[in-house]
């Protein structure tokens, strides 16, 4: 009979280091592309600025006065249509290219929660947020190979099995490896709790979605490495917003997947 330990030490001392999303997430590939283009644009602009500042600084106060600068008179207009068109067209092309990539990422990150093909092989959980803690409800079973090599249901260190209907209220979320996870996010409303915005945020897979009282929102991600990762609350929810922590344990054999 698992004890209903009202306080779980491990959830509290978060410790360790978080180095941001895993390498296999779409976040990393996008970040590299965006970093590359930022460097290209940044370096081009700063070198141009440096050159102009050095090349065209004032030699002597009586440099030739161009453009008829006199107080009270609108100066001679300077423009060069081809130059202006180029630095309008070129950024537009770059932005359109980046928009195309961004559109791709949208389809992988935000999934239609009612699509059939996701429904069959996804591991369904419900994340319930309340003021300053998380409850996890499992709707599928985690199946792992135990030491004798046959498949059994996974048992948590505190002795509770993770199968359809089991509940985690001690700030620990257990997830299978290499299976797409579909998490429904709801806010606990049993009359007593004050329903405010929360947002489960798992930096390891670079995803978050707000828990909005009165609305069900969805998260979809696929862990590919086992281990223990952090779950933060990313939407300001009051006094202990910084204490609303949980640990995500990815269990089972990883790396067998594609």
């Amino acid at each position, binding site marked *: 009979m698992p004890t209903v330990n009202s306080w779980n030490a491990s959830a509290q001392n978060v*410790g360790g280091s978080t180095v*941001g999303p895993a390498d296999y997430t779409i976040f990393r590939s996008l970040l590299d592309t965006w970093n590359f283009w930022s460097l290209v644009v940044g370096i081009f602009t700063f070198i141009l600025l440096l050159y102009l500042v050095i090349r065209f600084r004032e030699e002597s106060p009586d440099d030739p006065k161009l453009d008829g600068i006199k107080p009270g008179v609108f100066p001679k207009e300077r423009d060069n249509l081809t130059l202006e068109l180029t630095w309008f067209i070129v950024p537009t092309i770059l932005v359109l290219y980046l928009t195309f990539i961004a559109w791709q990422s949208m389809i992988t990150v935000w999934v239609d929660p009612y699509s059939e093909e996701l429904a069959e092989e996804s591991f369904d959980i419900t994340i319930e947020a309340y003021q300053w803690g998380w409850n996890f409800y499992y709707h599928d079973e985690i199946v792992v190979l135990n030491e004798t090599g046959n498949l059994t249901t996974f048992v948590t260190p505190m002795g509770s099995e993770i199968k359809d209907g089991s509940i985690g209220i001690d700030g620990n979320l257990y997830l299978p490896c290499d299976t797409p996870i579909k998490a429904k996010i709801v806010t606990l409303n049993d009359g007593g709790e004050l329903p405010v915005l929360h947002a489960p945020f798992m930096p390891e897979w670079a995803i978050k979605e707000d828990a909005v009282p009165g*609305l069900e929102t969805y998260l979809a991600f696929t862990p590919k490495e086992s281990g223990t990762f952090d779950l933060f609350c990313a939407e300001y929810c*009051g006094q202990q917003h910084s204490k609303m922590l949980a640990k995500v344990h990815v269990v089972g054999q990883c790396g067998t997947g594609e």
Partner: protein
Amino acid sequence: MSKNKIRVFSLLFVVFIALAATPQITSFPTGVGANGNAGCTCHSGGAGTTTIDVVGMPDSFTGGESYELQISISNPAIPGGELTANMGGFRLFASAGTFGAGENFTDLVQELEGGATHTELGNDVRDWVVIWTAPDSEGQIVDFTLHGNAVNGNAVGAGNGNTGDAWSTFEASVPGAAALGGGGALIEQAEPYEVAIAAISFGITLFSLMLVYVFYRNNPEGFNLNGLAAWLKKWLTTTDHKEVGTLYFVYSFLFLFIGMIFSLLFRIQLSVADNDFLTQDQYNSFFTLHGTTMIFLAAMPMIAAFANWIIPLQIGAKDLAFPRINAMGFWVLAFSSILLYGGVMSGEGADISWTMYAPYSSSGGEKGASAGTTLFVAGIVMLGMSSTLSGVNFIATIMAMRAPGVTWMKMPLFTWSAFVANAMLYISLPALIIGTVYLYLDRTIGTVFYTAASGGDPILWAHLFWFFGHPEVYVVIVPAFGIVSEVLATSAKRSIFGYRSMVYALAGIGVLGFVVWGHHMLTSGMDPTLRLIMMLTTMLVAIPTGVKIFNWLATLWGGSLVFKTHTLWSLGFLVTFTMGGISGMFFPVAGLDTHFHDTYFVVAHFHYVLVGGTIFGMFSAIYYWYPKATGRKLDEKLGLLHFVITFIGMNAVFWPMHQLGIEGMPRRYHTYSVDSWTELNSFITLSALIMGAAQFILAWNLIKSYKYGEESGKDPWGGWSLEWTTTSPPPTPSFHEIPTQGDANIDHHAYPESSGGLFSKMWKGSGSK
């Protein structure tokens, strides 16, 4: 004179009553201990029906003494599980002292951070013995909080294991032997609230002393105090655009420093992991007030100050269109800060962050928003009124009072940027006013706009707020564009490159600013079709800004650039704002935004754009137009020192935040336990303190140069716009004879006068001259 005196004293008396009636809510910030009491509260079910009795709690403790506390839980309605398992639980906290288990309770009780709790086995019984050893210093009061929980044993079976239980709380405070002896003087470390209130009242006393000093310096010989009343009356009743501009400037400069005090306080809090320099309440209200003060009480009034001062001079008008409405715009803003800060004095400052997201901001009670939030929201409504009043003024003035020769396409770019900024603010503000009125009524008379239980929708607030929010951030940056265009052109001694494309880019930003607000809410459960639209439009917004940056660079081509302080600030703007603009491009991408939303990457981006953009632009404007306003230049050496420290400090503070954002450190966290973040955060705090100190150089420079600055004639920097044709400081009303602006292009017949460009063609009305 006597009638005026009565009026002035009655006004001050009313203000005094309003201040005295500031809410004396006496709930001091308790700041629950490190682990919070969420333990039993996750057991839902009726609270308070369980009775807890503790035997052996001493009346007063002597240092180092151990006391045996027998705790037992009973609840007639919940007899406990039939298998004598999962009967009860407890969680004991004490603000000092250490814990141990009673001699035959070693397997039932365990010591845990901040107190004690039951073990696995201890969960099956309902009474325990805990040994508490008192701390050595007896001069303090130790607060005990004990949560007792009668469990009905359904463990992981029916329901979710934590239903049907009942927990309640037992509190006691045991004074040390020396605590009560002789007046019980408690030695408490300085409460951060006292630090904040002391700093703010010090700022206000300093400000009033400076006020009297400036009055004294006007004419030291004829100085007498009842002259002060007349001089004060001039300022309280002024409607001249220059004096209202000065009021706006002094007001925003004061609040720039108050906002800075809050930021330094919570930077100290964030410098190390698991720090408790500030309690959670204080941290939450400090970051709320930092955000609101910096945007609404520092940046926007500074823009209004320069707009008030410079627009009439640049378009050749004697004064703004509606002088008294202009003065009312300032005074509504001035009084709104009393409401915004009303809660802080009583320890109940608003803690709902500057975005005031709905269900939390419309909630109250122990876990909800603090009591000062209602006053705070009332202050935001007043800010809305003030911006609407000044918005009408600026748009009417620019549209109707331009001198002959100052057509739409020959107006200085600062006036253009102020026009676009005020038009955007003016059109987007009603969405904020309506959202805030709904929130205000939710908190005062009990409407249910954002209450999910009665069908209300929290995302309605997010939509209404950000429909205003995004144009707002453009309102804050667009005037800085105008200032940089003016300063770079004058410093390079050339006209701005591509004046027309600059104006069209401004108009492009103005329009696009209204269709992109969704990128602030991409992960907040917004309608997915709308997320796609918002992502696409946000991508387009970078293009007009890119056009402007390249135009500024092209302006430097072929010029002879002088390196005055205002030029340095504008070049600094070019560097930091470009980096901010580039880091902004990371957010419209779904894959990146799901990670970056509400992390320190967002904080890094908007500080690069706000501090690197608006504050650098405003400082450039201060050094550029101070001579026109006072007739004396600011000290260049002090200016250089101020620029170098602030430029390096700004990058040192905000660049590491990008890395913290990538590592996933969430925003608005009172503290964090991830050790790898400590090193970056302490570096940020250190550089923030240095950068903060550097701002006093500017304050000193402003005061010193008013008397000892180098004389500046009408046109110290060689600018071309109309403000450089009047004397400095200009007469009141600003132009005795409305000037006519010449046009260097007519001599070269580049642009025939009549065409007047697309804009005026579009507006060719039947009656216009």
